[in-house]
């Protein structure tokens, strides 16, 4: 039987933390994608996951704010502190969502319903008036069901004990939040969790493996993993003394990073991964601060270090009521729940992910030196000219650590009539170079409306160089682009010309010749 859990959910936390009102159309952006939006923006069609441009097209007056995870955690800290009145065993899943087991508190406060209402009012008092109406509280068996109870709550929802499976049955399979699995299930015709839960576990394991089994257990209203969680060996606790006491977040966070690495290494040696970690700090005056962070999948060393940093940020830069009276002298990380490390496998040769991390850091350093626009990565656009097929987007707009595909599947095969066949020129100047192409009589070569050269090219000159005799040429490849739009309409013809031993791609537009690219 899963642990009866209460989940408090403040939707759109990143926008709440940014200090915006629900009535402002605003988004929080990370890597050019919307991570959260206000209800006002949502009403205009903005959704998380959209690109910045898409969102701005739907809502032109949109206010755009960059994501700052430590701001999210810092602003959530007062809410968590207020909830500590109910139970000391609080778990923060991520800023905006936290959970606790209801067994003790529920009996003390007179049942799940009463507890849920008290929690709701407590959280509402901590928030700006506009956002109070958006808080949701759900109670159910197990954190997964409780989270969905909170999602569907108005504003509280208590699923009676033992009825979690029935409650979950009507939810769509997308609630599992495993996009690949959900895609397959939907194609198999399993649209709700109930239909998925009705399958026999043996069949699910045979077809989808351990990952599928975990999802199936969730769908049946059970815990993701069987309850036989190992209790962590006591020697897994890592601690560091800080001398002199750390008053600033960056000093403490630096120590936290080393601690997180150490913890991760120890767990790895035991073949374990941590899904819940307890962060504790002690101050010079004997104050003790503790917080539990939980994650659905295993927490990596970087994820633990991030959470410690957010937490310390929340304490040290929080309001006067929660701020410790002196610097932090001792920092402790304790894995609270560990599972066998089976699910995470890095690149086969030990480190494609590590390389991508290194690349991302190095890119960030160069951006710091030259400005964010100085570093770009190619992205497929499609087009006829050699310089039009790919465009360069700022590296700041993409997450380099996530594998991405530059050419969308099938894009290479899309027809671009009038496209120059490969091999493509290796040099494509950002601006075409003015050029002259003339025939034997010294007149400029003209390409007719039918795409034919009136006379053969005889000599060419470009970039202030000397006249070069044409040795061979081919074309023209006419391109009549965007004829439906009078402003963007372009008529061009391209010629491959070999002159002076060097091949180049010449373009003529409105009677003027340019060198568009050089084959070198």
């Amino acid at each position, binding site marked *: 039987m899963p642990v009866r859990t209460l989940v408090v959910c403040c939707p759109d936390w990143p926008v709440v933390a940014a200090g915006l009102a629900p009535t402002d159309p605003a988004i929080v952006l990370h890597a050019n994608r919307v991570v959260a939006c206000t209800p006002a923006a949502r009403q205009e069609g903005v959704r998380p996951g959209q690109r910045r441009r898409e969102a701005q097209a739907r809502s032109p007056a949109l206010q755009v704010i960059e994501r700052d995870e430590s701001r999210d955690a810092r602003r959530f800290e007062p809410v968590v502190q207020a909830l500590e009145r109910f139970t000391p065993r609080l778990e923060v899943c991520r800023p905006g969502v936290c959970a606790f087991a209801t067994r003790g508190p529920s009996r003390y406060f007179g049942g799940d319903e009463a507890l849920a209402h008290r929690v709701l009012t407590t959280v509402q008092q901590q928030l700006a008036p506009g956002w109070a109406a958006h808080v949701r509280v759900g109670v159910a068996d197990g954190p997964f069901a409780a989270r969905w109870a909170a999602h569907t709550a108005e504003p509280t929802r208590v699923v009676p004990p033992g009825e979690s499976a029935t409650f979950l049955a009507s939810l769509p399979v997308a609630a599992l939040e495993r996009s690949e699995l959900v895609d397959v299930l939907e194609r198999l015709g399993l649209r709700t969790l109930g239909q998925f839960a009705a399958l026999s576990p043996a069949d699910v394991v045979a077809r989808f493996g351990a990952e599928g089994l975990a999802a199936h257990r969730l769908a049946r209203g059970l815990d993701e993993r069987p309850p036989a969680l190992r209790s962590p060996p006591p020697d897994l606790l890592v601690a560091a003394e800080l001398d002199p006491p750390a008053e600033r977040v960056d000093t403490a966070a630096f120590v936290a990073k080393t601690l997180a690495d150490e913890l991760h290494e120890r767990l790895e040696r035991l073949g374990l991964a941590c899904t819940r970690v307890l962060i504790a700090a002690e101050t010079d005056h004997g104050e003790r601060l503790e917080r539990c962070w939980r994650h659905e999948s295993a927490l990596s060393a970087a994820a633990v270090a991030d959470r410690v940093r957010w937490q310390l940020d929340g304490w040290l830069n929080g309001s006067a009521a929660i701020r410790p009276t002196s610097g932090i002298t001792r920092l402790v990380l304790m894995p609270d729940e560990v599972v066998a490390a089976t699910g995470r496998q890095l690149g086969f040769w030990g480190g494609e992910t590590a390389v991508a991390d*290194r690349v991302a850091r190095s890119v960030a350093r160069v951006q710091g030196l030259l400005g964010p626009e100085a570093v770009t990565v190619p992205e497929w656009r499609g087009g006829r000219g050699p310089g039009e097929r790919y465009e360069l987007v700022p590296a700041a707009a993409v997450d380099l650590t996530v594998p991405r595909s530059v050419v969308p599947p099938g894009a290479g095969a899309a027809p671009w009539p009038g496209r120059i066949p490969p091999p493509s020129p290796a040099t494509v100047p950002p601006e075409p170079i003015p050029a002259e192409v003339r025939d034997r009589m010294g007149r400029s070569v003209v390409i007719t409306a039918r795409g034919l050269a009136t006379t053969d090219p005889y000599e060419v000159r470009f970039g202030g160089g000397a006249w070069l005799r044409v040795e*061979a040429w081919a074309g023209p490849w006419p391109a009549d682009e965007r004829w439906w739009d009078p402003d963007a309409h372009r008529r061009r013809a391209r010629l491959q010309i*070999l002159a002076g031993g060097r*091949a180049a791609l010449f373009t003529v537009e409105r009677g003027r010749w340019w060198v568009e690219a050089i084959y070198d």
Partner: protein
Amino acid sequence: MVGLAERVRPVTLAGEQTLPVLEALVGLLPGGALRRGSTVSVEGEAATTLALSLAAGPSGAGSWVAAVGLPSLGLAAAAEVGLVLERVVLVEQPPRSAWGSVIAALVGAFDVVLLGAPHRVVGSDARRLIARSRERGSVLVILERTVPGGTSRPGGLEVDLRLRSGAVRWEGLGWGHGRLRARRVTVEVSGRRSANRPRQVTLWLPGSDGEIAVAGQPAAPPACVHPSSVRVDAPLTRAEAG
């Protein structure tokens, strides 16, 4: 026993010190691979394509490639040569003062750094850079090319290997018909240490099937003719109407 030793040999050790290259370029490089920490300069008529094909091998094997100060790099050509564009990052030309720090930041994370160096690199900067790339195991590929309207020479950087593309011969282009299909390029290799004896290799860059391949023996007798003085023949006018 010998067979067994062959099999249990620690192959990764050698792989750690070199980066794989395209099959056609194996004969070009001493040891048949790019040695990590080395500096290569590429110049001549087909320099850009040659530099891209040097980077294509490591890129295909999972390395990241950075191109600094090459705003006119043909990305379509890069992809055709075999560069994996998902792992390519372009950095705009840094000002002279920041040049050294930018390259130093890239070396280490990127296995191959393509440089289009327009500034004359200060001696101390160059030494520091080479020491760093040696320590971090990255390969610097310096593209010394003649662009219309001026020449660019980085100078100052002492290179381990110098590739110079000489005689270039295009095929497939006729008089008003055909298209550029294949290119025969004679590449001269010279360098220090193991590569101190100049060699010549003729390559299809690319061949008519789009692949880079070795094109048999060089047409000119080696080492007696300087490649840049080889007269470029008139292209074949054999029509392949395409």
